[in-house]
């Protein structure tokens, strides 16, 4: 019996995402997937580091608006916290709380995306575009790839929220909520590296 029915919703079940073989497979598979994603971002970081010096006169430190970036960072890190709270609610079997925290996470994700879009718009205005220099290309590739991950995450979690409302927490749905949480943490961690390598190091002129 793979799916132990809908009773999990009201009963406290520790780690419902690992209650079935399918669930365990999904969690392990997702961890491995994130391993691959790490290489993906690693390659993008390497590309950025290799090419950021070729900026065609546009200097990173003149470009970056650190206040804006700091706010974006704060928002995304907060969303990481709310996604932890959602996962904890999942482990308590409290569907309602979980959904509420996921909603907060999505709202924060949207805010981050809004700031990023504004930021990109602002840079393009200053002549720092995808085609203006290797620095521009590698900057938008790295940061844009992360942004695309955030956008995908926001869309995915939104779908999961609707499913959570309709289906509750079961051994079938629990792994979905759990891996979405993993994913969200992952893109937060990537952002920490982007913040350091792209913005902080750019600001001090490395």
């Amino acid at each position: 019996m793979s799916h132990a029915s809908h009773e999990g919703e009201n009963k406290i079940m520790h780690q419902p995402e690992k209650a079935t073989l399918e669930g365990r497979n999904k969690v392990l598979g997702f961890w491995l997937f994130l391993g691959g994603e790490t290489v993906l971002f690693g390659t993008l970081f390497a590309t950025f580091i290799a090419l950021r010096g070729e900026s065609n006169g546009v200097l990173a430190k003149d470009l970056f608006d650190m206040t804006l970036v700091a706010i974006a960072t704060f928002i995304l890190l907060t969303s990481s916290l709310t996604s932890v709270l959602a996962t904890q609610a999942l482990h308590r079997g409290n569907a309602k709380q979980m959904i509420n925290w996921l909603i907060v996470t999505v709202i924060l994700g949207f805010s981050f995306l809004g700031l990023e879009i504004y930021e990109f718009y602002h840079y393009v205005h200053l002549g720092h575009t995808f085609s203006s220099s290797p620095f521009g290309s590698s900057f938008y590739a790295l940061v844009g790839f992360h942004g695309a991950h955030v956008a995908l995450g926001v869309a995915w979690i939104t779908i999961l929220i609707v499913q959570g409302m309709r289906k509750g927490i079961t051994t079938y749905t629990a792994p979905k909520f759990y891996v979405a949480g993993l994913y969200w943490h992952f893109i937060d961690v990537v952002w920490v590296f982007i913040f350091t390598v792209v913005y902080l190091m750019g600001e001090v002129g490395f």
Partner: protein
Amino acid sequence: MAHKAKKYKGLMDWLTTVDHKKIGIMYLIAGAFFFVIGGIEALLIRLQLMFPDIRAFGDDTAQIFNELITMHGTTMIFLAAMPILFGLMNAIVPLQIGARDVAFPFVNALGFWTFLFGGLLLNISLFTGGMPDAGWTSYVPLASNEFSTSRGVDFYTIGLQIAGIGTLIGGINFLVTIINMRAPGMTFMRMPLFTWATFVASIIILFAFPAFAVGLILLTFDRLFDANFFDVASGGSPVLWQHIFWIFGHPEVYILILPAFGIISDIISNFSRKRLFGYASMVFATMLIGFLGFMVWAHHMFTVGLGPVANALFAVATMLIAVPTGMKVFNWLLTLWGGQITYNTANLFAMSFIPTFVMGGVTGVMLAVAPANAQMHDTYFVVGHFHYVIVGGIVLSLFAAAYYWWPRMFNKELNEGLGKFTFWTFYIGFHLTFFVQHILGLMGMPRRVFTYLPNQGWDTMNLVSSIGAFLMGIGFLATVINIVITTAKKKKSVADPWDGRTLEWAIPSPTPEYNFKQLPLVRSIDPLFYEKVQGNKGMTPAEPVGPIHMPNASILPFVMSFGLFVAGLGFMYQDGGLNNDFLNFIFENFIVAFVGIGITLLCMFLRSVIDDHGYHIEVEELEDEGAKI
């Protein structure tokens, strides 16, 4: 609780199947199809090089030749060797570890269809005004849109991107399957070597393919959207591409050769009627090779000018790989030693692998000598070397695997006479083709030349090489005939035709869709052999007969991959250039691209929201089938 199974018939069955055995067969068929295409390309290459200073394809010979070498390499590596190996992994690994399916049957199907659509996308460039022509390594700036003006390289970047998604998720699938779904008692250190090799190769896939995905995306951006990653004029770096390509590309070679090692280990052990000599060190060597494979990429770049320090380091690191490889070779020899060797087609291929692969290996060590590499790099010596490894290693093992596992996969045995004919023609043809290429290289013949001038002492050896290539073609043809004849034949194979040692031979023939009615209890390495020696008829079950959970078939993987195919075409033609206003309109406004992405995203959405609990095969049904067998 049991949901009603959705059953499809005929073509729909194949399009929707999530059964690892059927997906394995589809990988084999698709891989063989691309192998034939790549083989024809190889024969055309050898036709042009058969005689000095000729133009076999008329005025455009030079361009056609560059397209042929590019497509030959790309097709053989990505669309033939990898899928055929994936087919074998799919068909055999779950059986070897006593699992009823892979961990993610749906994802498994998705992986196959993305590979197929990616491969088809790459190959339709033949009909759209030019195949990729910058070599399978696609070095920039030659691969940039400034110097490669047809759309060929776009087909390369986007086609391989789509196919690569399939490989990556396939790798993750095998990892989770092997970690989570081994039968009771099947510890890691009891797994057959083919399963071990699949495991390590999958780890390499996981860490190597994303790097290539990024490289391909960057090149796509450069070509289609005016990015400057590799554009020298605006400060981009062509050497960066080489690093990214080889950080992926070298491990890629091990993704191919490790499963070949696994196949050889299993077959040689089986037909020597002996357990594998030094099992633990074989496993260790496999992991070590996989690990070192990530440390040596720059040995493909000894003449790029990285400096003596880098060259010396990468040279020594490369040489170190010889140690675990040597361990393997001697373990194989000692497995044969004291055995009772059967000379059938499968084992002929498997055994001949050993000396042939060693010949490819030693030239690899020679090439690792960085200062001497400057004389051999990009000459026919390198071509000889890697064909000894890839044909003499991987292709021989694929033939061995096909003849060995055919009864398990198709319930029939291939004809031995035709098999041995294939072996001798292919094997002799192989040495004729590639041995002389080492000497040509040392005499200074560069690789990737569409022709060469006479009177350099190269003519005879090139002729020999071409004759050998056609001999290999004849050998392969014999196996194709063999397959046709065998398929038409009525005679079924027995369940265990080779006196097998591993779990896949403990299953009745044909393999039931759930593989194991009861999961087996594994009590030793070579579990079936162990039970035979103990005087048991088959495996001891580890569970009572109970309802078996099965995954539902689904058309979504097919549609999802088709969406990516459409999106790929859409992005490729975003600058129009078609001789039809309507088509130009929908391509230039990204309508096609977004429709394609939309199809894929919609499928992902449906997959997320529609619960798929699968269905159960009940005990009564199992007993019925049992009665039939």
